[in-house]
């Protein structure tokens, strides 16, 4: 491996390793094939998740997030996350800690009592950023089975894009990076109405939540998409398992397969759908795979 191989501490969060491990598998394989070195670390907690835990207590949310950042700093590497929730929590918490309000002061004291400190020397990188750092040419060069003919609707997810002044990934209303990464695999990214809209996962009323997702899936389908690409396990759940619920509760059927970007990457690198565990997805991915030529 070259001296410039990027090294990260992998922060898996909860949903991927404990509910959708097939996403973790694709990430480890595909990012490894690109020369990224991912180290595991014990001692993390949930990031914590940025709407329920934060809604219950911003102080608890911040202290747990800052603790994770402090633990990560001891490894001396940047963190890599595969989830928008982890990205927004750890990035926003780092921002709050560095800009020191009253909440940050309280947290600093609590960390010190445990012999931990946060200095802000390490970044949290979302896999989209890490791949863009590497460059779309490097991503393309790893492809052995180009996804030509496949039309992909990308769904960034809100917690990757907004608030932009803190997260600083891409334009909050006209993002292009994930489309570029999809096209690097030989697939075609299709734009659709409501491109940066929410998946609706956090809305408490179930029918309203599903309605938001259903509208988005319908717009993707009208634009000709064969599948959806997400970069977050919460968006994944809402759009994949959500389609079962949408059919049951709203009587609408979309049959639009949903993949995490790392899964699409692993497929383009020659991975087999079965060994990648894609059979666990609630919406059958085979029709989309059949569209891929070559």
């Amino acid at each position, binding site marked *: 491996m070259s001296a410039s191989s990027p090294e990260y501490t992998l922060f898996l969060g909860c949903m991927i390793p404990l509910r959708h491990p097939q996403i973790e598998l694709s990430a480890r394989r595909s990012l490894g094939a690109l020369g990224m070195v991912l180290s595991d670390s014990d001692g993390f907690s949930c990031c914590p998740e940025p*709407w329920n835990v934060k809604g219950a207590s911003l102080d608890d949310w911040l202290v747990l997030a800052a603790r994770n950042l402090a633990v990560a700093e001891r490894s001396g590497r940047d963190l890599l996350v595969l989830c928008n929730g982890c990205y927004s929590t750890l990035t926003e918490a780092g921002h709050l800690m560095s800009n020191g309000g009253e909440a940050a002061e309280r947290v600093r004291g609590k960390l010190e009592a445990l012999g931990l400190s946060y200095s802000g020397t390490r970044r949290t990188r979302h896999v989209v950023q890490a791949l863009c750092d590497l460059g779309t040419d490097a991503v393309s060069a790893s492809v052995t089975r180009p996804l030509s003919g496949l039309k992909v609707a990308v769904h960034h997810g809100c917690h990757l894009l907004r608030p932009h002044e803190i997260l600083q990934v891409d334009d909050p209303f006209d993002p292009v990076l994930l489309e570029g990464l999809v096209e690097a695999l030989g697939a075609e990214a299709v734009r659709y109405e409501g491109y940066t809209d929410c998946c*609706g996962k956090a809305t408490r009323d179930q029918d309203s939540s599903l309605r938001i997702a259903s509208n988005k899936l319908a717009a993707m389908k009208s634009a000709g998409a064969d599948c959806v690409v997400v970069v977050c396990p919460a968006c994944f759940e809402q759009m994949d398992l959500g389609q079962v619920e949408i059919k049951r509760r709203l009587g609408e059927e979309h049959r639009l397969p949903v993949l995490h970007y790392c899964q699409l990457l692993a497929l383009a690198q020659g991975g087999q759908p079965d060994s990648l565990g894609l059979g666990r997805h609630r919406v059958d991915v085979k029709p989309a795979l059949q569209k891929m030529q070559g």
Partner: protein
Amino acid sequence: MAKAIPDFKDKLSRIEGAGRLTACYQCSACVAECPAAQQCGDFNPRLIVLAALLGVGELLVEKDSVIWQCTTCYKCYERCPQGTHPIEVITACKNLAAAIGNAPEEITALHDTVAGNATLIMPSTAIEKRRGDLGLGPVPAPAEDLERLLE
């Protein structure tokens, strides 16, 4: 009719991010693209901010308050010309509701799961088996020292 809570605005403003409440001039820029406003009849970020400004806290922190419909999409944060950031006012309202035991049960339960077990989802033999079948190792050991941070 909902009553005003005398120190509601002060309490709210002390929560990180919610301090720019008074800059709101009720322009509605936060409403147009709000998915919760589009789907949930009673939800309107401008009116939530107004209620908070007027101190009509009861409406916001009662059990099953409309605030829990927010998707946390942050569109209002980007669109607000005044830096009021309705989402942050809503999060602060959620915190105040939770502090008096009025958060939805499932949300309190998730918070308590993380506080007690470090992870949002409990490990199980079923998931360890699935991980094994995929050729993945065990999940890294979670944090053990959270109790003292959360006391």
